[in-house]
């Protein structure tokens, strides 16, 4: 479906925020889902690129809806995407995939959101949705742990705070907040009777999964793999689980961490 670019702006070097006007007929999105984007009408790059839905909200215009994407320029496709100007159109499939289990999350008093680097992308929409349901309930705590290499890589800190949740920063070089990995910070902060939602590099998610297991709390993790169809047909994007290979694009990208077999 063709989506019009409303804005596409650099937040920090190499990281951009893209706002797309959602055309009529686009199904409502839920947190953890993604768009499968055809960046150019060309043979190179050929395949679509999966990008998470960073937010999905009213645009201000009558009945208008905006789908927002937070992305990093890492290669050919994302470099071309960063050059898109307002009023141009981008071909998007979506919302695709199965996202976070909101019902399950609603049953917990403490929610820990763990973002490793660009893993923050799908988590903003999630936190906004959780806060929407939770504001009225008492004593619910949502803690967002942002893990980055260095302070300059921190994204969306203010926006998370504006939603009313606690934000903790972990930098690997110690330039801000906790010095070390975000998973070390999680170990420090984690309370019983909590649920964890995480997105980031696979080794980080494996560590989160191990922390969840040893503390006997559930964790939902959002995974990545190269994609072909994005529709569950080609079996190109699989992850090994306790019940065989599953498709990240269709059965995920969000999985219960206890289901994933992490070692290669």
């Amino acid at each position, binding site marked *: 479906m063709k989506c019009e670019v409303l804005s596409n702006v650099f937040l920090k070097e190499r990281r951009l925020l893209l706002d797309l006007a959602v055309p009529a007929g686009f199904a409502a999105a839920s947190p953890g889902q993604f768009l499968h984007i055809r960046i150019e009408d060309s*043979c190179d790059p050929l395949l679509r690129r999966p990008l998470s839905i960073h937010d999905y909200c009213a645009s201000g215009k009558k009945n208008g809806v905006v789908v927002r994407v937070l992305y990093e320029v890492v290669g050919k496709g994302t470099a071309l995407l960063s050059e898109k100007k307002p009023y141009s159109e981008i071909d998007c499939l979506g919302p695709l995939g199965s996202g976070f289990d909101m019902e399950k999350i609603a049953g917990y008093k403490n929610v820990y959101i763990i973002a490793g680097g660009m893993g923050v992308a799908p988590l903003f929409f999630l936190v906004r949705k959780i806060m929407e349901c939770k504001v009225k309930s008492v004593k619910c705590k949502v803690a967002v742990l942002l893990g980055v290499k260095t302070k300059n890589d921190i994204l969306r800190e203010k926006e998370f705070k504006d939603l009313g949740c606690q934000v903790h920063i972990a930098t690997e070089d110690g330039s801000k907040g906790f010095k070390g990995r975000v998973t070390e910070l999680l170990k420090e902060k984690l309370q019983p009777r909590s649920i964890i939602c995480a997105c980031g590099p696979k080794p980080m998610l494996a560590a989160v999964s191990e922390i969840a297991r040893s503390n006997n709390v559930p964790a939902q993790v959002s995974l990545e793999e*190269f994609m072909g*169809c994005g*529709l*569950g047909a080609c*079996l190109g*994007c699989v992850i090994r689980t306790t019940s065989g290979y599953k498709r990240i694009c269709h059965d995920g990208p969000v999985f219960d961490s206890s289901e994933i077999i992490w070692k290669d």
Partner: protein
Amino acid sequence: MKPRLEVKIAGLKLKNPVMTASGTFGYGDEFADYVDPARLGAVITKTITLHRREGNRPPRISETAAGMLNSIGLQNNGLDDFIKNKLGAYKDPRIKLIVSVGGETNAEYGRIVRELSVFKQVSAFELNISCPNIEYKDKIIAQDERLTREVVKEARRNTRLPLIVKLSPNVDDIAKIARAAQDAGADAVSLINTFLGMAIDVRTRKSILGNITGGLSGPAIKPIALRMVWQVRNSITLPIIGMGGIMTARDALEFIIAGASCVAVGTVNFVDPGASLEIIAGIERYLVEHKFKGINELVGSLNVS
């Protein structure tokens, strides 16, 4: 007057010459939001095997210049699951379903086609012979005339439904294998399957694919696929289903002019899930513009003067 898009091939009557290639369209249901399979010439399923196959370790996909590598490893849930959970979904009698069949022994191919022949949803079989035969030191069937002949004969003994033999391009002379398939009783050949290739991540010095090598598909392979269709067309009399890198109606027309009665589209389904329908519409427009009464006039019409 509207030009005729119908084709008759291997005893099948198809609405139009455009099929979806095995492994790129699942079992059709995954694309339900984009394509009504009843509008296609035919749907060729993901290859099924007798027993469930896990498939290869990921990563299974890597993009290359104007193409992609895949090493899915024939992941599928096996014959019984296909019968129980997939066949039932094809209720619409307008859908032409071609089941792609793979196996490790000739007997496996024979058994699958025999068991599936009783289902009226199944219109034909495509034998995916790019599989290693474990009884012959894992030799790839499609790379050996004798193995090709044997597997086609065994399938032939077990079904009266049309048999399409899918040829591999990873051979020294594809026409030789096509002739072997024809001699053994095939009703049509389809070509080509993917080219064996690889890609390396220089940072880690590891192959990008978990399986190290994989099959190259997409526009990058089109010129070679086209040449092979032309070559096979000149060596056998069986009808040909042409494929390899088709992205547009023009690409499809090239294959038809080179000698293919039908085409199959694969990788383009990932780029644009509705591409197969656009290609059908584009072929029709071409026939109108160039005043052809039907697609048959175009098949093998390459002007070599």
